[in-house]
């Protein structure tokens, strides 16, 4: 079994990547603070594959870089 990590500290170790955590503890405002890092990748599909295999009750996927490129305008 993978070690428990501090989510925010772990995010700093993998810049510009997608991270998948199994969430084991949230703060009083329900934000994930501790968990197990299950996958990290530049490719969202790679993280998705692991999430679909593991299917933990509560997971957290985040991208550690800029979510929207600085030179990109968005009109959705």
């Amino acid at each position, binding site marked *: 079994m993978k070690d428990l990590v501090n989510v925010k500290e772990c995010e700093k170790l993998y810049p510009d990547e997608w991270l998948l955590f199994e969430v084991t503890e949230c703060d009083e405002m329900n934000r994930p603070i501790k968990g197990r890092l299950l996958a990290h990748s530049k490719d969202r599909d790679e993280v998705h594959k692991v999430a*679909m295999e593991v299917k933990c009750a509560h997971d957290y996927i985040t991208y550690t870089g800029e979510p929207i490129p600085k030179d990109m305008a968005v009109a959705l």
Partner: protein
Amino acid sequence: MITYRFNPNVSSLILEVRLEYVYERTRKMLFDTGASLTVITPRVAEELGYDLSQLKTASLYTASREESVYQLNLRSISMESGKILNISALCMPLPSELKIDGLLGLNFLRHFNINLNFEEGILTFIPLEKYFVRN
């Protein structure tokens, strides 16, 4: 009251919310008052436990075209101290350049009184109590 701090110079506001269907998934979504409905990507729908082949489809009209998308109902969307139950959502891919997993549209946002303070970089949500289920 739910408060987020943001850089007033950023081009978009991204919020962390917890989505619930079969599973609970915390994902980052774009705050989008221009979207009538909340949107999640097909990947997130599958991660929540949806079988895409069992979902109904709907027509979506964007600024430039019409396209067919999946319709679904999320059990809840949680934001910090509570949740809104039974939120309809569309399921469609977003451009891969956007590193987000969906859009928080008006059908979710209308359950709050929202204040965007660009001078101080503070976004506040005041839940409408009749809809907000506290944790």
